[in-house]
């Protein structure tokens, strides 16, 4: 470290004044006034080089040499206005600079000197002896130039030449030169542009890194949050789509699958991943006939509805509503969404409701008609009954005998005649036919009667046993069936709960089913005819299920559909009224709040399913 003695340094000695070198600066200390001066100017503050050095070293490490240098230049320029106020007070630039240098040296800045100025070329050379910047840089062993001074001199140049200037340092104390020297010249260089240039060259400092890392972290955090939000939203939407009870499938303009919800997976057995990108008809063959409609819908931008589309799944008949929505976006049509709803239950329910409606209207009609039919029927049947009495059964009643005598005919002869002409058979036929009419009217009336009688709880397995016994005695010559030849296989669930029901009515239903089945098996000459009678408790539905299954001829779909319809019968004319099953249905559904259904296909027997609620 070199110490340059300033040339014009004054040496005034006084008893009361002590001289002290503080950090190589001569300070006069007046012990009388307690005032410290340097070059007659009071010194109120002083810095310690070591402090400054430490500070700058830390700064350099943080922001880097070049950055720090530029920052110092900027700081130097900040002081130009203050400097110039001092310099401009003097007549010549030379003197102004010298006076200012006195003050600056006092502040520890070292001594500035205007070495040379060329107004024509607009060039100045400044020097700084004993520069604090140079000295601390020498101390820390790193030279990045005396930025404060450079900034200051560039600013002075601007003041002198009235054009933007730049100061280039040519000599460095920190490098062992005697002084710091600066060449000042007009330049369009700016500190800001230089700083930008530094940033462009990727010369990142730790501070930059810290800032960048912080920014990056913030950005990552924000992006993460956005991604999280996006993920959550996507999840939410897909949950909605997957929770739908409908099959929801998205296709692009070419009919390739883009969206495939859970119900679609369940229905087709194809996972969403597997379906992605395939043509809909490939992964959902059932939809092949819909492809035309999908293109149509995309082309016309119109929603297409198809209701109750019939399809056969695993031998079961299903009804589906198929809706095709074109996906219309701002830029046109993107594809289509296909929604498939299984409406089988709904359709079945509608069918049953229509059936119920039919039966109830028949019931209403029957109630009105019954009286009108019963009266003439009574006239007919009761008269037939009297005729039977007079002509066949009780021929020997006094009135007959008297009339025969008056007609001069023996009652025996009349009897022979009647028998020969089949009169009793004819009367019998009248009575029999009349009885059937009466039965039909009575059965029809059952539809009108809303049963409100108290229903007691009955064990249905016991009731089934009783009914089977009863059916076994129902040997009917005319209908040519013998219940005893039929095997009965009972599959009762243990500990069935009792069910509130009208015993007689339920028995009527069961008997009717057994009879129908027996007749059907007999007529079709079913080999080894058998019934399976099952009972199950459906706890979840709070229903008790009874199944009566035969291995007879079964029924096709059309018959299955109509089997509960009033007056629908497949039996020979005169054998069935066509009311048995509809009456059964009415008893189960209307009177007991239960359900009745049939499952059958041609050649595979028939299964009737009855469900009765476990509680009223």
């Amino acid at each position, binding site marked *: 470290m070199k110490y340059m003695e300033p040339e014009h340094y004054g040496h005034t000695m006084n008893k009361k004044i002590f001289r002290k070198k503080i950090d190589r600066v001569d300070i006069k200390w007046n012990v009388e006034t307690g005032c410290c001066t340097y070059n007659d100017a009071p010194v109120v503050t002083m810095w310690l080089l070591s402090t400054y050095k430490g500070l700058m070293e830390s700064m350099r490490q943080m922001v880097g040499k070049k950055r720090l240098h530029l920052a110092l230049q900027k700081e130097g320029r900040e002081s130009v206005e203050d400097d110039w106020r001092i310099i401009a007070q003097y007549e010549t630039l030379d003197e102004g600079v010298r006076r200012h240098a006195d003050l600056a040296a006092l502040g520890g800045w070292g001594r500035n000197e205007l070495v040379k100025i060329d107004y024509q070329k607009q060039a100045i050379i400044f020097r700084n002896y004993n520069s604090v910047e140079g000295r601390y840089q020498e101390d820390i062993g790193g030279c990045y130039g005396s930025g404060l001074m450079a900034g200051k001199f560039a600013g002075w140049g601007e003041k002198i030449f009235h054009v933007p200037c730049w100061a280039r340092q040519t000599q460095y104390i920190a490098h062992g030169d005697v002084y710091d020297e600066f060449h000042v010249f007009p330049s369009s260089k700016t500190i800001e542009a230089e700083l930008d240039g530094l940033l462009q060259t990727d010369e990142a400092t730790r501070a930059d890194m810290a800032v960048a890392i912080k920014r990056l972290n913030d950005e990552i955090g924000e992006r993460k949050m956005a991604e999280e939000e996006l993920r959550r939203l996507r999840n939410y939407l897909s949950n909605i789509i997957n929770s739908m009870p409908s099959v929801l499938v998205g296709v692009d303009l070419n009919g390739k699958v883009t969206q495939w919800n859970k119900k679609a997976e369940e229905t087709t057995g194809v996972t969403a991943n597997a379906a992605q990108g395939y043509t809909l008809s490939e992964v959902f063959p059932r939809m092949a006939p819909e492809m035309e409609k999908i293109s149509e819908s995309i082309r016309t931008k119109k929603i297409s509805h198809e209701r109750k589309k019939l399809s056969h799944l695993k031998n079961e008949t299903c009804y589906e509503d198929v809706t095709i929505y074109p996906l219309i976006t701002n830029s046109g049509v993107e594809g289509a969404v296909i929604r498939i709803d299984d409406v089988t239950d709904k359709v079945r329910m509608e069918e049953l409701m229509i059936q119920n409606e039919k039966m109830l209207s028949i019931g209403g009609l029957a109630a009105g008609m019954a*009286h009108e039919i*019963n009266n*003439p029927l*009574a006239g007919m049947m*009761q*008269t037939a*009954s009297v005729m039977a*009495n007079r002509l066949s059964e009780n021929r020997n009643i006094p009135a007959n005998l008297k009339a025969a005598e008056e007609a001069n005919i023996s009652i025996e002869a009349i009897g022979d005649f009647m028998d020969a002409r089949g009169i009793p058979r004819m009367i019998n036929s009248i009575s029999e036919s009349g009885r059937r009419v009466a039965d039909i009217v009575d059965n029809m*009336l059952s539809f*009108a009667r809303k049963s409100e009688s108290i229903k007691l709880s009955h064990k249905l397995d016991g009731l089934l046993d009783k009914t089977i016994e009863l059916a076994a005695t129902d040997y009917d010559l005319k209908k040519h069936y013998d219940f005893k030849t039929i095997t009965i296989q009972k599959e009762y669930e243990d500990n069935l709960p009792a069910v509130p029901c009208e015993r007689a009515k339920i028995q009527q239903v069961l008997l009717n089913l057994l009879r129908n089945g027996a007749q059907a098996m007999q007529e079709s000459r079913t080999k080894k005819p058998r019934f399976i009678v099952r009972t199950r408790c459906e706890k979840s539905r709070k229903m008790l299920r009874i199944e009566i299954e035969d291995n007879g001829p079964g029924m096709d779909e059309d018959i299955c559909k109509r089997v509960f319809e009033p007056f629908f019968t497949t039996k020979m004319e005169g054998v069935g009224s066509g009311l048995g099953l509809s009456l059964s249905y009415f008893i189960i559904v209307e009177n007991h709040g239960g359900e009745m259904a049939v499952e059958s296909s041609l050649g595979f027997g028939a299964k009737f399913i009855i469900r009765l609620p476990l509680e009223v």
Partner: protein
Amino acid sequence: MSESRKSVLIVDDEASIRQSFTDYFEDRLWRTSWAESGEQALEILEKESPDATIVDIRLGGMDGDTFIREACRNNCKMVFVICTGSPEYIIPADLQKMNGVSHHLFRKPVTDMDEIEKELLRSIQNIDMD
């Protein structure tokens, strides 16, 4: 039955039904009379007092229930058996309490005429014992 012939009044607006009952009971050696309305039946009851009456409910003028109430006003000792073609009909409570009114309701058509005769005889016997 042999020593004293029972008598029955048949009240029904349907001729063929009246006739069938009349024929049946005549064959069974009952004395019969008939009316086609409640009003007419009440007139007959002023002159005759049959053992039993078979009453239809839906009649042209007053209905069967009213006829029975009217007929019983004079506390006559007579049996009433109701025979109706109306499926929803039930015997009103006040009639059920009456001594002579049979609780056995016959619905048309009566497929077994013997049943109604039996019921008439049973009711007549009951009322005689009172």
